[in-house]
């Protein structure tokens, strides 16, 4: 009954006019960045962050969450109509979604994607509710030693498991950690790696790095492509019916399976929503009685992965809210934002400010309803965004990036830093170095260092504290196993190829 009391408390705040408005703005903006190719939630949230500093924290977080799960809705529209995924997690939707559009079934594809996203978003939020309290309670037992081990686990999983090359993932993680040490040390006030720059004494802002690595590099990639391909045409949304009863029936079980798969994959750090969509697609093909229709416009191939995508996004919020540990680039940005607003997500937040947490959770139910409306009857309006000339789109994005970076602390220095990270990000993309581990390490680095130092201060310099406490030992064992596994996997793949 605790749960219902908390939830009604959350709803009572979430339905205030102001919070509803921010929820709507977040969902709307999220859909837009989802639809626009090349601009994902990382960039969308980063650009917007500086102007949210003055908002009340609850409204700001409701809006960010709306952007976060809203972008998962919009991504499918682009996949279905243009065959270009708006985000990596919408790649799978292209397989059958675009085929459906060519066959004149664009409406059914869009509808099943939106309904599946709604289904998954809603039920995954229920799962968050059920899981949040037990995990937060477990988190209360954590000492700095456990936190350090948990952060190490999150970083290694993102760095090594989710990438093609664990060595490159490791490299990116280490560079991110190194960048996090730049600036003044919190405990002693000593300055590290500032090289006399007053701006570096304050440290390197993760927003600058995020916009550089994710947005500026994307614009460079687009600049490179434009000479080669030119612009793409989109399929039209035609037909009278959105979705037939038969199609909805075919979609239902994929929704359920996609939601379960997505949520489970999403809760784990490192995996993220993209593998969840591939996994769901594979499962749907396997259980289907007509696997030969996959890739030729099978509605299950849209319904499953789209549900998995949204469920994975919601699942990733579980470790973020309950333990304060993000498992992906987007949730890392959100953690950074939380800290700017003066909120430390984690077990204590559930104890100290339940109204805050439950308002956010309640707003997710509302946000998903808003998104269903935005993405079903109003999808035509968003599809028009795809007709925007790429030249104008990317130039405006660029301008938003610069103004966003500049307004963090009114420093031209940061604009230069953004350009440098943009160039670095471009080469990282070209040569398969993952950007997400770098960003995650930058955001988590300081927490990790503080955890390490506090743990050792508490143990009077005894390093065995990390292996004598059972939870910490368990986390470190999993860390070790995941690193070993990812390296063995690569080595085995190599020897098979020989």
């Amino acid at each position: 009954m605790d749960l219902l009391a908390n939830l009604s408390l959350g709803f009572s705040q979430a339905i205030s006019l102001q919070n509803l408005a921010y929820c709507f703005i977040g969902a709307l903006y999220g859909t837009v960045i989802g639809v626009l190719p090349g601009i994902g939630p990382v960039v969308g949230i980063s650009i917007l962050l500086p102007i949210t500093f003055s908002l009340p924290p609850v409204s700001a977080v409701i809006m960010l969450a709306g952007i976060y799960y809203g972008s998962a809705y919009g991504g499918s529209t682009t996949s279905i109509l243009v065959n270009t995924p708006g985000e990596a997690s919408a790649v799978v939707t292209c397989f059958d979604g675009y085929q459906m559009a060519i066959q004149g079934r664009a409406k059914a594809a869009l509808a099943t994607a939106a309904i599946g996203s709604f289904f998954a978003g809603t039920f995954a939020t229920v799962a968050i509710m059920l899981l949040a309290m037990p995990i937060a309670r477990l988190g209360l037992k954590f000492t700095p030693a456990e936190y350090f081990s948990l952060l190490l686990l999150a970083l290694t999983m993102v760095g090594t498991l989710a990438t093609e090359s664990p060595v490159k993932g490791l490299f990116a993680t280490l560079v991110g950690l190194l960048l996090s040490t730049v600036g003044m040390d919190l405990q002693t006030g000593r300055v590290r790696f500032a090289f006399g720059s007053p701006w570096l004494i304050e440290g390197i802002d993760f927003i600058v790095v995020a916009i550089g690595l994710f947005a500026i590099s994307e614009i460079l990639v687009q600049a490179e492509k434009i000479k080669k391909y030119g612009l793409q045409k989109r399929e039209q949304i035609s037909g009278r019916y959105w979705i037939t009863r038969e199609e909805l029936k075919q979609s239902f079980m994929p929704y359920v399976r996609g939601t379960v798969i997505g949520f489970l994959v999403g809760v784990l750090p490192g995996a993220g929503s993209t593998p969840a969509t591939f996994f769901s697609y594979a499962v749907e093909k396997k259980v289907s009685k007509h696997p030969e229709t996959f890739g030729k416009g099978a509605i299950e191939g849209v319904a499953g992965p789209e549900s998995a995508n949204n469920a994975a996004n919601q699942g990733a919020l579980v470790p973020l809210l309950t333990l304060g540990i993000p498992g992906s680039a987007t949730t890392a940005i959100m953690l950074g934002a939380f800290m700017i607003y003066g909120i430390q997500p984690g077990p204590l937040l559930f104890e100290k400010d339940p109204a805050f947490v439950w308002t956010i959770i309640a707003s997710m139910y509302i946000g998903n309803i808003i998104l269903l409306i935005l993405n079903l009857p109003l999808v035509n309006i968003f599809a028009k965004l795809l007709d925007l000339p790429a030249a104008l789109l990317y130039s405006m994005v660029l301008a938003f990036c610069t103004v966003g970076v500049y307004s963090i602390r009114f420093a031209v220095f940061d604009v230069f830093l953004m350009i440098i990270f943009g160039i670095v990000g471009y080469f990282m993309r070209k040569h398969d170095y993952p950007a997400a581990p770098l960003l995650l390490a930058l955001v988590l680095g300081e927490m990790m260092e503080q955890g390490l130092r506090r743990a050792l201060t508490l143990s009077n310099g005894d390093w065995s504290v990390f292996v004598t406490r059972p939870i910490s030992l368990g986390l470190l064992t999993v860390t070790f196993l995941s690193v070993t596994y990812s390296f063995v996997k690569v080595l085995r793949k190599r020897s098979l190829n020989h």
Partner: protein
Amino acid sequence: MKETEKRKTLFHFDCIVALASIPIALFLIHNEYNTPNPSIQQTLGPSFMPIAILIALILSAPLLFFSSLRTERKSGDDAPLPAEPPSKTSAEQYKVMGMVVLGLVVYAVILTPAGFIISTTLLIAWQTQLFEKGKWVRNLVVSVLFSVGVYYLFVHVLKVMLPAGILAL
């Protein structure tokens, strides 16, 4: 086939990254080591973490180096050469990207003296021109409207100060 081609160009880049990271890391360790620490008694001082990360970086550099060598040898075994042209970035493409970066650098330099509206108008006009030649009237109109609109939004609605520059006079 395409994969092999990609691997081949990868080889140089990864080796350069691996080799360059060692002296840079050594320099940073040296730099950190020679910075005087405050006299506060601490179990782990502020130097520990950066130096540990840098040592890990140095240790992983050979891993990166050898993993790129192995993929290189493998692609060398794959004969005959692919028929399709390699997807290498052409000089012209690098030029366009260079121009994008140049536009950004000029923007950063003139932002404070010239002000937000002028520099942003120039930036957008420049970028749209790079992405889509011709149509410069449309592009210019969009740039001006966009810059003025964003300036108004930030300064008057969101109360975020942006440099006014020479237009303030």
